[in-house]
């Protein structure tokens, strides 16, 4: 993995090498193993490298071919090396001496800006053709690696992280209000705008081209919501998923050091761990599996559909694989979610969405770093791919008048869960179909969170001014979170809701790389195209993955009726943190603009009314865990982006 940056003077003046050097310095923590630059005339590229794969030791970036007049920087990993080598007609002996970046260079030389379609893996790249005065940049289909750009009359620049762009004289850090608004409202990221004013992102699956000073953008890859595959029978879908899973996981095991995996005992991380464990066992290689657990002795209440201790299922799975070393990390009793908030914001160049998860994620990364781990597997996008629950199938059946199938499904569900009353089916079956106003009224009557201000600490006055509702509608987003029966479209929207590129890049700071087999482009496309009937059946939600992992995952994971909860003891140390949070609140009050964006009065009130119990109540969780902590997190980011001396 690398971090990349480039600077082009559009007025053909000589390159400002000092600025390029500062950009490199800012990206060095993301690629601590090697830093190199290339410059020619008005253009300069830089790359900082973190060696993860064996081929990374061959990396010679930035690449420049005088004959082809092509310069390139590449950040990422190619998962289809063999396929590419064949397509490009490169001799295998020569290909063995090529880093992924060099292969990507050959692909770009061959297919130009169509090359990204031929590349599989997590990547971001930029190509410069000085004769044509043309630059083009691209990111992988799911945006696993980040890439930002900045343009003004005399300069065009790009970088893995926004912080490197702020080394350019004339570009000052400042917030993009629209993006901040969408972030606070949890709306999907739309368009190229980043959280910073004047800084834009290359969107996932997009090619951005600068040709003689003119900018063009196009998507080279988008998931098709209308695509559906039809296989012979139910088992064929299971076999196909198994095949896709194996391939996606095997592609992500290329490493020059130990491999670890998150194992939270949920279906996604368990599937990834089991699959990786199985493949590595065949190679006689070990796998570290990390499970985060609450502090020792924690017995606090959690919601009745949740369970706090995820170690039970995790232990059962790890016990099935001799090559898996299972590491359970109990939360440090002194740790709090806001401990390193400012450091995390600086690393991410954005506000972490869930501050509570920072504690255990950091603990895992630090332990893995101590063990020299190079690859950390996860199943973050599993909900959208392998473990989709299939619930939208129910309203789809009603909308299409498939009553018999619905009755059959209900019977199966009832067989599996005898306590299931038909009234409990009303909500998932009908609510996606009712008008939104009715949905909101019902949620309110049920005392559930239905308003934006229930879960977001956005300043209501600002929200009114921006007209959040209208903006959400324009973006095709529902602020009341009414479930949709258009499953594929909803999953695709959710995929692009948060740009996870920066999160992945921040893992580089620990000397390792995050890899998500459930975010494999081909696997994702397959899962989106599988008919909904495969996800809901046999009395099960997530039916497809349950069938695929039958016999591989233990019953403690496959058959457990409740879902695990991350950081169930998050509230324990916050009480000690209240004075610090009040201090932080005072700084936000003194800040030039934080009060404009955030409901500081609401945050203050929440701090005053900090509860001592009721943590299993979803409303308490929404108000304090989501609204308050996210508010503090975004507040920290506002202070980072618009610095002051409060």
């Amino acid at each position, binding site marked *: 993995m690398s971090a990349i940056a480039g600077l082009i003077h559009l007025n053909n003046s000589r390159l400002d090498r000092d600025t390029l050097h*500062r950009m490199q*310095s800012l990206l060095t923590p993301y690629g601590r193993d090697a830093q190199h630059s290339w410059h020619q005339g008005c253009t300069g590229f830089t790359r900082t490298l973190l060696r993860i794969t064996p081929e990374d030791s061959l990396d010679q970036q930035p690449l420049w071919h005088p004959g082809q007049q092509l310069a390139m920087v590449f950040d990422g990993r190619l998962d289809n090396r063999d396929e590419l080598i064949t397509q490009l007609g490169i001799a295998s002996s020569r290909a063995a001496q090529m880093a992924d970046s060099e292969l990507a260079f050959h692909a770009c030389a061959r297919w130009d800006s169509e090359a990204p379609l031929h590349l599989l893996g997590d990547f971001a790249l930029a190509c410069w053709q000085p004769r044509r005065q043309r630059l083009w940049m691209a990111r992988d289909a799911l945006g696993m690696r980040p890439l930002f750009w900045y343009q003004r009359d005399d300069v065009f620049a790009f970088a893995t992280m926004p912080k490197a762009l702020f080394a350019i004289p*004339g570009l*000052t*850090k400042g917030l993009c209000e629209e993006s901040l608004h969408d972030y606070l409202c949890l709306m999907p990221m739309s368009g190229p705008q980043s959280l910073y004013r004047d800084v834009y992102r290359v969107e996932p699956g997009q090619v951005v081209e600068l040709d003689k000073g003119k900018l063009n953008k196009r998507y080279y890859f988008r998931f098709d919501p209308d695509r559906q595959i039809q296989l012979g029978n139910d088992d064929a879908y299971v076999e196909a998923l198994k095949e896709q899973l194996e391939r996606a996981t095997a592609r992500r095991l290329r490493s020059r050091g130990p491999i670890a995996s998150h194992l939270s005992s949920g279906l996604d991380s368990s599937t990834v761990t089991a699959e990786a464990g199985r493949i590595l066992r065949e190679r006689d290689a070990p796998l570290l599996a990390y499970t985060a657990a609450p502090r020792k002795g924690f017995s606090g209440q959690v919601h009745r559909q949740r369970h706090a201790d995820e170690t039970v299922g995790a232990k059962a799975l790890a016990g099935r694989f001799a090559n898996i070393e299972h590491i359970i990390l109990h939360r440090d009793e002194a740790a709090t979610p806001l401990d390193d908030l400012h450091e995390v914001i600086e690393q991410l160049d954005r506000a972490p969405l869930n501050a509570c998860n920072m504690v255990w994620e950091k603990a895992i990364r630090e332990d893995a770093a101590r063990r020299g781990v190079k690859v950390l597997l996860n199943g973050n996008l599993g909900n959208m791919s392998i473990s989709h629950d299939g619930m939208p199938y129910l309203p789809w059946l009603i909308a299409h008048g498939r009553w018999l199938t619905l009755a059959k499904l209900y019977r199966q569900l009832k067989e599996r869960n005898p306590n299931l009353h038909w009234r409990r089916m009303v909500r998932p079956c009908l609510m996606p179909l009712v008008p939104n106003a009715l949905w909101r009224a019902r949620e309110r009557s049920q005392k559930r969170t239905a308003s934006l201000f229930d879960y977001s600490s956005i300043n209501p006055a600002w929200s009114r001014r921006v007209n959040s509702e209208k903006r959400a509608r324009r973006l095709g987003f529902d602020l009341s979170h009414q479930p949709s029966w258009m499953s594929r479209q909803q999953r695709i929207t959710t995929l692009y809701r948060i740009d996870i590129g920066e999160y992945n890049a921040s893992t580089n700071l620990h000397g390792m790389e995050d890899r998500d087999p459930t975010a494999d482009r081909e696997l994702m496309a397959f899962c989106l195209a599988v008919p909904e009937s495969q996800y809901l059946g046999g009395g099960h939600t997530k039916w497809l993955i349950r069938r695929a992992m039958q016999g591989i995952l233990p019953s403690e994971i496959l058959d457990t009726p409740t879902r695990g909860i991350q950081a169930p003891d998050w509230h324990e140390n916050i009480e000690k943190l209240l004075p610090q949070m009040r201090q932080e609140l005072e700084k936000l009050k003194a800040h030039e603009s934080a009060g404009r964006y955030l409901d500081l009065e609401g945050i203050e009130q929440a701090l005053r009314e900090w509860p001592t119990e009721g943590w299993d109540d979803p409303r308490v969780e929404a108000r304090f865990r989501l609204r308050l902590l996210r508010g503090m997190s975004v507040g920290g980011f506002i202070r980072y982006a618009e*610095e002051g*001396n409060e």
Partner: protein
Amino acid sequence: MPAPSIDASRHVELSSAWERTYAAGRKAPGHPPDLALGKATTRGAADALAAWRRWHAPNQQQRFSANQRPWFDMLERARVETLASAELPGMASNLATLMTGADAKSVSERLYRVARQVFAGQNPTEPVLIPLAVPYETAWPMRLIRTWNKRKHKGTERHLDFVLTESCLLQALQEAARHLDDSQAFTDGLAELIARLAELHRAETPSNPASEATDSETGGEQEHPDSGHFANTSLAEELAERDDMRQGYAVFSRQWDEEFPASRWATPQDTIALRGLDRLDRRRVRQLAHRLQRRLMAARQRHWLFDQEEGRLDSRQLARLVGDTPTRRVFRIEQTSPLPDACVTLLVDQSGSMSGRRRHMAALAIDLAVHTLETCQIRCEVLGFTTRFAADNPLEAQWRRNRVDHFPGRLNAIRHLIYKSAEQPWRRQRPQLGYLLRDLPGHENIDGEAIDWAAQRLSRRPEPHKILIVLSDGAPYDKATAQANGRDFLERHLRHIIAEVESSPIHLTAIGTGQDVARFYQHVLTVRQPEEVAETLFEQLGDLLIPGQTARRAS
């Protein structure tokens, strides 16, 4: 014509320098009536020139015709001098001397004196309109003639509307005195009076080359051949010479700026707080200090001087004692070349964001670093910087009242602190370090000027090796300045200063407790935890003072 004496030219230089300093980047063209730079032979006149440049609103001047303008200039001069007097007591005293002296002969001079008195809230000691006021007020035939004239010329001439009484004049001045800060309202209030004065005293219109100079700059009338040219060229040269101009920078006012030893602000409470520094776990930092000391001492170049008549016996030369020509030169002396002849400046950001543990660790690191450097006989300066004002910023208030410039430049007063100069021993200066531990919430950081100041001090040092280490936590920021000029204003200046310093013999390095610092400096070390400040500082000092060793280690 005799050539001007050296003293006179020196006086002009001083006057010019003071004018530039007080004007703080303003570019008011021309000079006040009856005064030009060459004529400023007294302190009062120099102050009048400075006040004119600082406070004069040239855009108002253009509202008046050529014969009205000198009257306006007289009143404008009274206004700017009143404003300057209100700000600086010393200037008030100097400017008061312009009011004393021989009785004014012309109406315009009397107008100036009376206006100064009225604007200062005093009762006028002499009338302005003696020649006209008496016949008009008392002689009815004159009044009759004027009335007849008025009727006769009704519709064609307006000059009879310009009848003026002393009381009217005083009333207009008193009204204008309420708008001294607002040049627009001030001019509005006096426009009629000026018109009347110009009409009544056509023959006595005072001359002011400054007006003509202004016209030439604004594309108006032809400039005055002598003084206008002088004013233009000298002004252009002065502006070209200005550091701020060269740096694309401006300062609203430097009169509130402070540069003092930290002892000025350090209180006994700060000294008590300093004891808290001793309670911190200093072991690790001490270790680092000792390591640096060992590195520095080891870097001393040792060599032997042979063939000496005293010293340690050189066994290889013993044969000389028994030779044909015995000699006593059989000794050798070990000589140690001095440590790198260097001066190190540590410049600490003391803005509000540098709070709590960051300050403590920075102070601890500085304390031991200076001690170590002194032990190794390396000169060292410790400087701090912040702003004088936080939320209650009078400069901003003043700017908002006047609104003369859209982009006023730096809108806060800087506070530059000297904890230890290169010559002072640390044991005496250390108690002042307590002030570094004091939290200054809301106080800002104007890094560009601070680095410029520190670099200028360092450049005056005789040591050939100059090192400037900045301890900071972020980008330069002052709320008032950023709001008035944009956030980029201070950043641009900082980048400019850094580029200048980096191209000089000074080695500039920054230690930042956040990645933001790396946006600006070429040589920067980022620390994540405050505890890392000491480690990074000592490491960096060693590398900078013994570059050869660093190169060997790196290779």
